[in-house]
């Protein structure tokens, strides 16, 4: 086996491994990363909501369909959560990234470089940065049912849904 062949074999092996690592292992614990989100009964936002969960919630990973993870919550309920809303690891996150206890090691792992709450605190001392309005803006949220009724009334239907 010459050097080139060896190299390509290594590349292939590496890439296969990369694909295999893309999803977490079944049974491992994952953590909610967005401030709050819904766990749905089906892998779709148009299904009914099982529970509302907050940042830092731990759940057990059971499998995936497209961009959705099937999870078991600590209450024993099973549902689906969107992949973009979780970290594939067990981390101790506070409910708000700006909270006072948020300087934990895990928080730093996620927002470790550049911007983090302590920088924000420094900036808010200056006149030009007022975060109170931003905080209030973040409080506003509609529930899934309101949006579904709104879609029904407006004759809106998602045109394409991933078939699993």
């Amino acid at each position, binding site marked *: 086996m*010459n050097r080139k*062949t060896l190299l*390509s*074999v290594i*590349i*292939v092996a590496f*890439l*296969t491994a*990369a694909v295999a690592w*893309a999803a977490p292992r079944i049974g491992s614990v994952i953590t909610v*990363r*967005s*401030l709050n*989100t819904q766990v749905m009964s089906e892998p779709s*936002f*148009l299904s009914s909501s099982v529970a509302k969960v907050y*940042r830092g919630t731990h759940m057990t990973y059971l499998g995936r369909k*497209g*961009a959705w993870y099937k999870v078991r919550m600590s209450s024993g309920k099973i549902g689906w959560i969107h*992949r*973009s809303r979780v970290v594939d690891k067990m981390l101790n996150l506070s409910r708000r*990234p700006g909270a006072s206890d948020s300087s934990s090691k895990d928080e*730093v792992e*996620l*927002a*470790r*470089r*550049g*911007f*983090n709450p302590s*920088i*924000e605190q*420094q*900036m808010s001392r200056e006149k*030009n*940065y*007022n*975060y109170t*309005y*931003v905080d*209030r*803006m*973040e409080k*506003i*949220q*509609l529930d899934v049912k309101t*949006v579904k009724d709104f*879609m029904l*009334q*407006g*004759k*809106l*239907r*998602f*045109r*394409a*849904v*991933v*078939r*699993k």
Partner: protein
Amino acid sequence: MRKNMWMYIAAIFLTASAVVATDTGCRTFTTYTMTGRVDPEALFWDVQGAIKIVQAWNWAQKSITPEEEYFIGRSVSAAVMSRYYYRFYNGQVLATGQLTPGMLYYLYEIGSVLDYAAQDTPIALDGFYPIAGFHFMIMDNAEINAFSAPGGYVFVTSGFLALASNEDEAAAILAHEMGHVLLRHGVRMIKKSRQSQFRKVVMQETVEAVSPVGMDLLQGVVSDITEAMVLAGYARSLEYQADEFAYKLLYYSGYNPVALYKVIEKLHRMGLEHVASRQGWFSTHPKPIDRMKKLWKYMSKAGRPKYRLPRIRMLRYRRHARPLYHQYRRYSEFALRYQ
């Protein structure tokens, strides 16, 4: 020798499939239905999407976490909201944090539909999603303008909303701005000179050191993005990208995607009437006619639907926007003339 060649071909194929598979969650290998039949357009876009994801494989996306983008976005929004002295429509929302029925509530409903569509349909992105979700705010201003900060903060002026004559056109405005957020255009607006420095900070993971130099750098980053948003606008190519994204998002969410073209057309006609004052939106975006041409090409490739809407989406928009229509009569008369 030949054996080696095949090995290389296999390696290249695997590279491509690995990139696609990790990023899109194997969506490339699924089929789509549109009201019961296989939709060739969806397949076309899927392939386009896969290509785009590979293209977007750059440091901005890879090295800045959603958490960091969230904090950048918060600072940019704080700067916009306190520096540019905008009044806010339905301002009591900001005083109390409670949303009451009205124009802003209605805008949130439209935005939430787009929000869910962005995640539920094949447009779904490479695992990036703003951690606080999307947040919308109406600025009470006669200027025609809309902008978005990284991390999901979208601002629209009431003048712009008065220019829309139905719900689909308002959705088109939001979809374009959401495109900037989801394609992560904000971090690309950091000035070249600062970018290398910022990259160094990001790579070295020297963080908690809140040194004066570091503070200067980060404030510079925020002001770069803020200026790009409010004064200079994004790069031309990014605007076209956001248009294309908005077109897809509107299509998948059930809105009529041609509404985007109609909005830009209105701006074009508006621009002809007000050439002298290149203010607000006109100063931060490429010429509407150029965007129309690009979008027309894209629409023709992807299959152009007719511009027909259910009546209810027109009626309920006008019902909610009536106060705005009254306030900015010049725009609304224009909007209704060119609908």
